[in-house]
């Protein structure tokens, strides 16, 4: 099977997955108590029951759940993600406006994770069971254990408030590519990337240790290749397969992690919008962001599958 056919096949599998994601999200959302109308008027003594019912009808919240779902999905199929209920603003416009912010942050975090994790993993594997290995494993364990929001707050406390290196609020009047903005991105990027870096480092170390024990390594060394070439050219490439799988899976957690980090660092991305939408029971926004995130995760996995082949020509798509 050719690469094209493989991609096509995977692309088609997106349809049932996305359908499943949408049904589950929609269903779960309706299982949670309260809707935008209760959020808005429940504690307002001036709003009568009739006015509440009228509002619910106007916002299309009065029918049974399956009927609401059908209406929603048939609109989505023609590219209409609906409006934010209380303001009437287009949901797709909201998502598009937030998207670049979250991507910038996510990429930053992801790049940070890889840049830290891969060299650290190599170092730990090569110096297995020595002091450097133990230290890096301890740091990795801490990295996995520290919750995002706490790390974010601590970084702000130390680097912004005590050391004054970064502003607490993002320089929001600057465009994303402005140097001030990139400088500001360091703290949230580190926060988002830390947990991922820790996991990647551990996997890198394990798979590298495993590869180092294989015979071809001994052969390469016997051949007189410098250690540097053995490690970076032969062993590294072979150990990267599991790291790629993990890195792809971690994109999901980076997107999910951005929810908390965006709130702490006041970053106007999808994550903050998502929290808002959930609190206000804005179903259309929640659905759009969920679908988008789902799509993104599937895409990341697809890219990982393709990268396998580049890393290991023996892998065939059949």
């Amino acid at each position: 099977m050719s690469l094209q056919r493989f991609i096509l096949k995977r692309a088609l599998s997106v349809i049932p997955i996305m359908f499943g994601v949408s049904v589950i999200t929609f269903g779960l959302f309706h299982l949670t108590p309260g809707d935008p109308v209760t959020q808005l008027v429940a504690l307002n003594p001036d709003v009568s029951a009739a006015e509440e019912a009228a509002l619910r009808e106007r916002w299309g919240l009065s029918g049974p759940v399956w009927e609401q779902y059908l209406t929603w999905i048939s609109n989505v199929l023609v590219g209409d993600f609906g409006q934010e209920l209380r303001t009437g603003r287009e949901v797709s416009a909201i998502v598009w406006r937030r998207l670049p912010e979250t991507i910038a942050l996510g990429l930053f975090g992801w790049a940070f994770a890889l840049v830290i994790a891969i060299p650290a993993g190599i170092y730990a594997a090569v110096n297995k069971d020595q002091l450097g290995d133990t230290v890096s494993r301890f740091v990795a364990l801490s990295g996995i254990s520290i919750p995002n929001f706490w790390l974010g707050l601590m970084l702000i406390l130390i680097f912004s408030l005590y050391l004054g290196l970064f502003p607490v609020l993002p320089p929001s009047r600057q465009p994303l590519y402005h140097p001030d903005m990139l400088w500001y991105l360091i703290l949230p990027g580190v926060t988002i990337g830390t947990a991922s870096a820790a996991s990647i480092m551990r996997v890198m170390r394990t798979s590298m240790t495993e590869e180092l024990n294989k015979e071809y390594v001994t052969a390469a060394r016997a051949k007189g290749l410098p250690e540097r070439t053995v490690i970076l050219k032969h062993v590294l490439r072979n150990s990267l397969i599991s790291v790629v799988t993990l890195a792809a899976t971690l994109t999901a957690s980076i997107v999910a992690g951005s929810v908390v980090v965006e709130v702490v660092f006041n970053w106007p991305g999808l994550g903050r919008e998502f929290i808002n939408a959930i609190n206000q029971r804005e179903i259309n926004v929640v659905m759009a962001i969920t679908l988008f995130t789902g799509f993104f995760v599937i895409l990341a996995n697809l890219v990982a599958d393709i990268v396998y082949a580049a890393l290991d020509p023996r892998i065939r798509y059949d």
Partner: protein
Amino acid sequence: MPSRHEDSGESRTINRRNVLSTIGAAGAVGLAGCGDQSGSGDDGSGNGSGDGSSDGGSGGDGLFPLQVQLEVNADNSDRVQMVELIAESMEQTEYFETEIETYEWNTYVGRVLDPEYQDNGFIPCIGLSGTFNPESFCNALHHSDNIGACCNLNGISDSELDELMDSARYGQEVAQDNALRAERYDEVWNYLAEERYSSITHFDLETSVSNTDVHGFEMWPFQEGMYSYNMFAPQDEQIMWIDRDTAAGDSELSDLVEGGTLSIAVGANIESFDPPHSSDTTSTLAQNFLFESLVANDTEGNIYPWLAESYELLDTTDIDRTAYADYMSTVETTEEGVPDTDEQIIIQHPEDNPAEDDEVRVLLPDDAVEAAEDGTYGMHYRYSLQEGVEFHNGDEMTAEDVVATYEYYENSQLAPQTFDSVLTAVEVDEYTVDVYAQIADAEAERELPGILVLNANQLAEIEKGSLDPREDNVPIGTGPYEFAEFEDEQYYEVTKSDNYWVEQQGVAEAFSWFDGSDAFPDGPVIDGFEVEIVPDDSTRSGALQNGEIDSTYGLNSSTLDDFDSSEDYIVYGVETGGYEYIQYPVNVEPFDDPRLRKAINHLIPRQAIVENVLNGYGRPAWTDLPELAQGSGTADYDALEDEIRPTNEYDPERAAELLEEIAAEN
């Protein structure tokens, strides 16, 4: 500014064990603070438990110990702690065995607003926010109209009380006589103290923190008006300014410095710039820089003409809403029980029920104009507008704008509260508008002009609800600041308007009621505001510490303590209309006995709640009426408090007496 920690030396750690162990001490706190509480300290609760065990235990099949379930929403940890404290205090008497159920907020609201909730016999706890209108501290909780709605949770249906509350707000007599209205409310508070259907525990303290560059700042009891009030409020001679060279302290008008940009942070996104199509605090806060109202309030709720140069009440009549029947149109109802019309329903005939009837009689906007012109109305107010008021786009404000604004409020988020009292607004001439109230209503003077005046030309061009920069419509008002920039979820900026009408005319000229100092400026002195949108509390407080903003609000009490102890920041606080209450299941035995309700009320450690749970940022509710609403809510606030306070004191001895009485009868 009310003092926060009346008594020092109290443990302020919010920890259940600590909180509970200090219940006894609460009496002692009261003892130090006020003589009324004498004898109600530790030994009081000690006696209570001793007596209670013997009485309660000996009955066997008697009423006591009574199983009581208290309910509360889980997301508000202060409120949960408060309920735990009340429950523990009840348990200590050994007359009660309590259980606390917590719920997720939406579940909780759905649960307690269900009309059948009252049959459970539970004691719910919830918080509401009141206004200058004293009604907001009694009607929502107790009026039978609010059963199954907000927030008569336990189905209190007392026709005598209903009548008493209605007679304090509606009818020709009170509408024309504020003193009479105040007396009637005094009757309401006394009646409530006698019946004690609900127990209000405390009134919230609204707080804000600024650095010492901000001078002349005073708290306003409502968040949404906090900055607009401070930027320029001649009714209280209130003005703030920025002086980055001297630290704020006892700043005086003579020190006033003009210019500068004030940077503040708000805790939520600005959802909309369209006044009637938003009701959240942050949106209103943002709009208040740009728009003005026909009248303004001072901190006591007194009304001052603003965009209206003056106004007068021309007539009141003694009609009720059925009097509009002749003008009403008949509309069908939909399957969901909603009248099928796209127009604003000004009044729905009180005898019709859209949930059951196939058609209902409703008064639509055109019908309302007709009725008013025929002389069918409750009240007739005439507003004479200021001449020469310019909108930011140069248009002059006239009666047309005011009338168009009322129309724009139809079918908006604010329509329910607007057309609760407004019948219609009619243009008389270029600078005169008649506004009619549906029925004679003592609150009409404040409620009728409660719109932000918008520009008629702009309203004619835009779609309803789209007065917002996100929809490419820049909001245009008459206010001292013009819209400059807004980035959704990020920031909002306003700059001082060059043609602000008060500044052009001079404050003494513009407002005939102004009798303040000559030094008081003719308009705001700050050049512009930068509003940062920062939802996270800790991030907001970090930005304030880091000097990135000058002022913010809504921080939690432990953070406030940190700022309070620093010389570089000032914490401001004022009592607001926010309050919390528990409500007794009066329709379920034995709670139909007022003695039982009073006994529990005496077991609520109000002082301890404020000291320990709220860290001092609140005021115990010694009466049901906060100082905020004293203007029309009582003839004499001190006298009222003297009278009612003893019934609301923490007094386990008195509680034990009452409970013994009940036990003896059973």
